[in-house]
């Protein structure tokens, strides 16, 4: 903080205390407060939107990444065990393609149409918050000046020049405050008004990208099916595969090296 900034902060802290104790009257601007509340609502909603948009992409990526690693593992198992019907290879390729092509092809549009516009919108908030902060500071300054004038009127000082000077200062503080306040009161609603046209297209894009992803994923997965024995589908549906897994596991337990056979 600069020296003058520090001086101002100290002075304002004093004013705040005086306000709390009721020695300085606080200006209440209902119009501004309403707009500020509206802005806060917008801010929290937009921040949440940004978080969720990011979370969706992250979990999508996590899903395809996990899928790819599972495919790698299965392929490694297969390779080691010498079951060379090649299904695991096809499966692995399909999953890897899905990860590489689809995700990469959708990643860009998703960023361009969902993440970036939302982030851009959210990026206006710090500036606005600074403006609000500044407005509050200026209001404090103005209130302090006005209180000074009032005090001088109530209890005139010996120095006659003091009152006109204080009045002039108060007038200046008022001008500065009002300029900023008017700007905020005028411009905050403008931003709030355009939120829907600004953010709405992203929702549509998100839905489309989701659909595109699902359809790509399904198509690629379905391709692997041709390499599998058609009977396995029924086996899966009938829970036979499950039983099979359980049987094998029991077989493993029965090996004397596990020491579990008795259990």
């Amino acid at each position, binding site marked *: 903080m*600069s020296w*003058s900034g520090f001086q101002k902060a100290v002075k304002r802290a004093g004013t705040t205390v005086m306000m709390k104790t009721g020695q300085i009257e606080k200006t209440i601007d209902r119009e501004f407060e309403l*707009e500020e*509340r509206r802005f806060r*609502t917008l801010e*929290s909603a*937009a921040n*949440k939107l940004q978080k*969720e948009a990011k*979370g969706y992409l992250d*979990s999508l990526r996590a*899903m395809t990444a*996990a899928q790819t690693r*599972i495919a790698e*593992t*299965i392929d*490694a*198992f*297969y390779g*080691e*065990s010498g079951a060379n019907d090649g*299904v695991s290879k096809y*499966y692995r390729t399909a999953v890897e393609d899905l990860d590489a092509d689809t995700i990469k092809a959708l990643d860009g*549009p998703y960023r*361009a*149409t969902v993440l970036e*516009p939302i982030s*851009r919108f959210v990026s*206006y908030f710090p*500036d606005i918050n*600074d*403006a609000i902060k500044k407005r509050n500071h200026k209001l404090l300054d103005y209130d302090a000046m006005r209180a000074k004038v009032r005090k001088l009127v109530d209890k005139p000082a010996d120095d006659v020049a003091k009152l006109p000077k204080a009045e002039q200062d108060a007038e200046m503080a008022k001008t500065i405050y009002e300029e900023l306040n008017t700007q905020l009161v005028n411009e905050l609603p403008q*931003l709030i*008004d*355009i939120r*829907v*046209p*600004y*953010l709405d297209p992203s*929702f*549509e*894009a998100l*839905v*489309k990208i989701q*659909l595109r992803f*699902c359809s790509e*994923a*399904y198509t690629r997965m*379905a391709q692997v099916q041709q390499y*599998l024995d058609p009977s396995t589908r029924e086996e899966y549906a009938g829970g036979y*595969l*499950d039983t099979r*897994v359980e049987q*094998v*596991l029991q077989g493993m*337990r029965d*090996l004397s*090296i*596990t*020491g579990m056979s008795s259990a």
Partner: protein
Amino acid sequence: MSWKGIQKSVARAPQSLRQKMNIGEQTKDAVFIDAERRFKELENETKKLHDESAKYFAAINSMLTHQIEFSKAIEEIYNPISGRASDPNAAIPEGNPEGIAACEQYRTIVMDLQVTLQPELEMLDTRVVKPAEEMLEIIKHIRKLIVKRQHKQLDLDRHHNSLKKLQDKKERTLKDEKQLYKYENDFEIAQQEYNYYNDLLKEDLPKLFQLETEFIKPLFQSFYYMQLNIFYTLYERMNANNIAYFNMDSTVDIETAFNTKRGNIQEIAEAIPITHFNLNRSKKKLADTKLRYARPGGAAGAAGAGSPLTPVGTGFSDGTAAPPPYGYGEYAQQPGAAEYAQQGEYAQQQQPYSPASYASASPATPGAPYSPQTPAYGQPAYSQPAAAAALPAYQQPAGYTGYPAEKKAPPAPPAKPASMGAPGVEYCTALYPYNAQAEGDLTFAAGDRIEIVQRTADPNGWWTGKLNGYQGVFPGNYVQLDA
């Protein structure tokens, strides 16, 4: 660890060390080593399979959750923002009711999806994650046995070593003979134990590998069909969504459609000054500052430069302004500049423009410690023989803080104050470009050589100079006097 366990591990310690250092003879069983390698792979792969399928499960769930939360967030955006939550009648009719309806429809679909997929996902858990977990359990037991075999091998090698040592001894005492007998016994037992475990593992591990193949195949198939089902459900439900709100025309590229729908809303938003409050503010400050500079000689020289600058703000400290006009740090390094040391502090404050420094620079405040406007302190700083380019401190506007640190080489011999106002033509070289800010200003580029018509002792004042036949005023701190 049990007491017995501790005893054993102490007894095995020397041999274990020897094994690590590869000293002495060690039992090696190639078949077992290979089997163990495969087992290790199996162990890793199973672990990976287990972890990744758990992650997969979590990712799909979180994906759906984020979809729902996203729709909730966008609904909040669509909702009218009244600012008076307690008073429902106060709502201004705005917002986006159609959008809200679409949100609700969308959410219904996704929630429905979540419900539909739940059994599928649970199946993933029971059919893939759980079996992998059990497999891991089995592997853990086998791992235990392998460790045991390892210990037995250590024992075997240990006893073998002791026995061999004694056997190789040329002259054995009676005691040695007794020991020998004991060692032979130990060795025999160790051999038997080792063989038992070794053979057991060698026999069963291949069986395990065989079972593993049988295990992974149905597991993979289950996983595949589950995945297929999940994707199919996702696709089908998402495709069936006929929310009229969205234009699902798939012939148009997503990004193109997005841009069409969006129009120039971003420009509109950014045209609202408040969205760039900080940027606008610093721009305004800069403009104000420039305005002040553009008043050369108007209020008569230094006095004019002093007073209007009092409320100088951060305009320059944000780096947008080009030159650092006042290098106070330079003063401090001048000989006999003790009374200016204070100015070094100004430089450290990163804000060489603090109002006080301006005030004191003007002759109107003779009370300031360095007010004597002798050319001696202003001059030397600028008359260093270095060429314009050789003054790095000046060339980096961002380098304010660098000044105090740069108490570099001893300053060049100070120029004679007598040179001030001396007859004859003086020249100076521009350190920075300067564009006329007002009528009567002299415009020049960095490096231009300007003939000085009139100048003040103070390098911060406005000087008059001639360049290419034009005569005009310019800030003295933009140039360096030629020696």
